């Protein structure tokens, strides 16, 4: 029930907006996100934008991902080396 989909604001009129996602347009409300403008990427739930997508945050998440993978690959390699016969 907490499903939300990402969409882009293409029209704005006070608390009302139109968003587009994969060529589907939908009228929503933007009361919950404060300042916003056309072109903003938002997450939509039950007819309301519940937050803007933060590009920097997205990049940070990707960095964590990359770091995590590097650590795991290193550990994986170490494990394989430890297991290989001397």
């Amino acid at each position, binding site marked *: 029930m907490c499903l939300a989909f990402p969409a882009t604001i293409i029209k704005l009129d006070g608390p009302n907006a139109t968003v587009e996602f994969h060529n589907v347009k939908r009228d929503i409300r933007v009361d919950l996100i404060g300042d916003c403008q056309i072109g903003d990427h938002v997450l939509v739930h039950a*007819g309301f934008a*519940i937050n803007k997508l933060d590009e920097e945050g997205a990049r940070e998440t990707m960095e964590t991902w990359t770091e995590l993978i590097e650590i795991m690959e290193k550990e994986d390699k170490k494990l394989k080396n430890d297991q290989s016969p001397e």
Partner: protein
Amino acid sequence: MEKDQLIKYSELLKNYSLKRPLNIMEVCGTHTVAFFHTGVKDIFPEGLNLIDGPGCPVCVTANGYLDRAIQIQKEHEVVLATFGDMIKVPASYTSLQKLKSEGVRIEIVYSPMDALEIAKKEKDIEIVFLSVGFETTIPTEAVTLKKAIEENVNNFSILTGNKLTPPAVDALLTLGEVKIDGFILPGHVSIITGSDNWQFLPKKHSKPSVISGFEPKDLIMGTLRLVQLIENGEIEIDNLYKEVVTEEGNRLALGFIEELFDVTDANWRGIGVIPGSGLKLKDKFSLYDAEKKFPVTMPEEVENKSCRCGEILRGLITPPECPLFGTVCTPREPVGACMVSFEGSCSAYYKYRK
């Protein structure tokens, strides 16, 4: 993310060798379904057990709530407006779907604003909106109600059945019936609550947790990171959904909730009354509170004794362990709420059963 990269990362999860068997819980019903339909659950390494949490609002709504809604409709001839998820849920004696098939007008809406629009257009009917849902949904209901109050829409009211997720997770751990090593926290709930609202997990219960999105890469990364936190003894919350989740949450949305609602105790199906886990409308808005506006004589609440939805919601058993699962109880003919909701654990197990 490139497809070959995703395959590579999937391999990492699949081949991960755990130091000891681990139980992790995904709190959110949307995660429950996502783990199944992306296939990420199928590549869990040996010894990693995913326990479904109480994160499906429809599933945790006790019969008494729907019984009241139905009784209000019967005694006061109101029009109930509801999210589609609630329509098939069996109450003690009937369901909204059965009522609808008997000719009772029930409006299924996508947004609470749609329910308000009906009330504004049809002044001669009373619209009662079934306000269920967790923190993700509550602000949308709060804004709608605020509009109704501002515009003096007197034929609109809400029946509050809203619930707060952190107190429920706290209660599960305090009950101590099931051993959980760490949590995958709900991404969209956390947009509103913020990651700080979950700090009781590491601080009070010493449980590491991650906040995760819903894409396959998010699920894989969230799972791997959680396992890493548990194995390294790092008792903290790692927010892996920073593009939308902040520490303090959506202050604007939380403000709307605080303006209209007071925190109260709430009855969760299968768990019972959890202190501070529900919301009620502030007294000054009682004209918009369907429970006060339309007093009813409540019928006795009856639960189907053979349905084990409650134990499933507490993480004690998996759906296939219930004798009704897949035989008497199917998505077409659901006995319990966990089979009704698309996000219910039983429904997900049934849909993706091998």
